[in-house]
């Protein structure tokens, strides 16, 4: 059998690439072709996915020449002069870097942000409802809410949102050339470096300012490393949640019985959010690894130097872990999904994302109970060309 060319395109807004189920049910750990040439293993079952992602024999080091990259030319334009981001580190270095910022993302800290996030959500829904009807949910709510929240947390001026949103979108589009991607990244990088330099003079009480103070006290402060962290948090903090807000809204509008259930009992919203995260798995291929010591996974030997793509979306549709996995069922109990990854790199901002999604869905359908799509689903601009799935626009009316 000829190997599949990765990455594959989703079957539609509600379904993974067709081949995912065939791989998972046929040959669950198999080799596929990469865009830059060469091959990697794909791991498709829930149990195997969790095992690989929590196993030190699989490295996250994107500077390893054998690391499987999804974008053509990415290696050539790698910025080798910059400190590695947390997502590219392994233990013990990774644990140290993660723990330095973890205190900012605890469940308790996120709870303390709840009233402020509520205000931001209300303000953006006011803006949507006061604007033209039909309006675009993406611009006014989906992208604005998480951008406002992460800007406030980090201490990034929101007035600059167009600058970093445009460049992030460019970086995430697969068709963007490696050269253009690097240029966009360099611009955001320079912007954050300048912002941090200003904060160094008199560290303000925001996440970046507190990091400067804390790391200086510990004697480990490194300007370039904080720029890398700031870059990662800013990017990860808006595109991901934005796309889940749009897709989640779409799925609830398309499943009126389930929408009615959460309207009748908002206590069901947290469970619904977990199910929506599972159902869409918008960041599917970010969980790539390179094997650094031979390992046996699901009866297959993976050798040091071989790349591995953990297919989160295949794992989240694995009938061994989720009964009737292709159905959206907000009451199924989906907390064991791997939409945020698994293992030591599991999403740092997951509890912020959860809270934003819970508040948006709870508020949007209460404030605009008649909300409905203003265009046929077939005509919506889905992000089939981006590393993070979602919607470019979502026209709604109320």
């Amino acid at each position, binding site marked *: 059998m000829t190997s599949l060319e990765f990455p594959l395109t989703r079957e539609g807004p509600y379904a993974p690439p067709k081949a995912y189920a065939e791989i998972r049910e046929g040959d669950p750990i198999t080799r596929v072709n990469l865009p830059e040439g060469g091959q990697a293993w794909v791991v498709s079952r829930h149990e195997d996915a969790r095992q690989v992602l929590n196993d030190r024999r699989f490295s996250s080091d994107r500077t390893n020449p054998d690391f499987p990259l999804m974008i053509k030319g990415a290696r050539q334009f790698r910025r080798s002069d910059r400190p590695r981001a947390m997502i590219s580190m392994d233990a013990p270095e990774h644990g140290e870097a993660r*723990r330095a910022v*973890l*205190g900012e993302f605890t469940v308790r800290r996120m709870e303390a942000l709840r009233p402020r996030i509520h205000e931001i959500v209300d303000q953006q829904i006011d803006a949507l409802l006061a604007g033209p009807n039909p309006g675009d949910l993406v611009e006014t709510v989906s992208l604005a809410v998480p951008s406002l929240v992460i800007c406030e947390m980090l201490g990034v001026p929101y007035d600059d949102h167009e600058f970093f949103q445009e460049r992030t979108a460019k970086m995430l589009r697969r068709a963007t050339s490696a050269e253009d991607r690097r240029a966009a990244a360099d611009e955001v990088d320079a912007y954050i470096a300048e912002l941090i330099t200003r904060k160094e003079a008199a560290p303000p009480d925001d996440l970046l300012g507190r990091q400067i103070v804390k790391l200086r006290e510990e004697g480990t402060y490194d300007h370039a490393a904080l720029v890398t962290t700031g870059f990662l948090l800013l990017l990860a903090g808006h595109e991901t949640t934005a796309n889940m807000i749009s897709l989640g809204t779409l799925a609830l509008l398309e499943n009126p019985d389930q929408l009615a259930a959460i309207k009748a009992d908002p206590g069901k919203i947290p469970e619904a959010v977990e199910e929506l995260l599972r159902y869409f798995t918008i960041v599917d291929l970010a969980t790539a690894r390179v094997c650094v010591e031979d390992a046996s996974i699901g009866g297959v030997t993976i050798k040091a130097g071989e790349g591995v793509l953990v297919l989160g979306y295949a794992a989240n549709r694995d009938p061994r872990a989720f009964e009737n996995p292709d159905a959206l069922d907000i009451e199924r109990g989906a907390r*064991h999904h791997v939409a945020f990854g698994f293992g030591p790199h*599991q999403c740092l901002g997951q509890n912020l994302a959860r809270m934003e999604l819970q508040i948006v869905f709870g508020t949007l359908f209460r404030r605009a109970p008649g909300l409905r799509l203003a265009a046929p689903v077939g005509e919506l601009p889905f992000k089939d060309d981006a590393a993070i799935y979602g919607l470019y626009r979502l026209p709604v009316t109320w």
Partner: protein
Amino acid sequence: MKIIADTGKCVGAGQCVLTEPMLFDQNEDDGTVIVLDDTPEGDLAAKAREAVLVCPSQALTLQE
């Protein structure tokens, strides 16, 4: 039942706290797990099992 937490393995995802804040909290400095009640009974014991299932670093184990 006894809950054993390995803070060396813990990655501070907070999934245990989300599962049951009566049983788990996080160190406010580095986010690692703090077990508030390590011998839960009844409904709380079921919550402890759920926390073990969703912990991303398998830092929690149960001694039955």
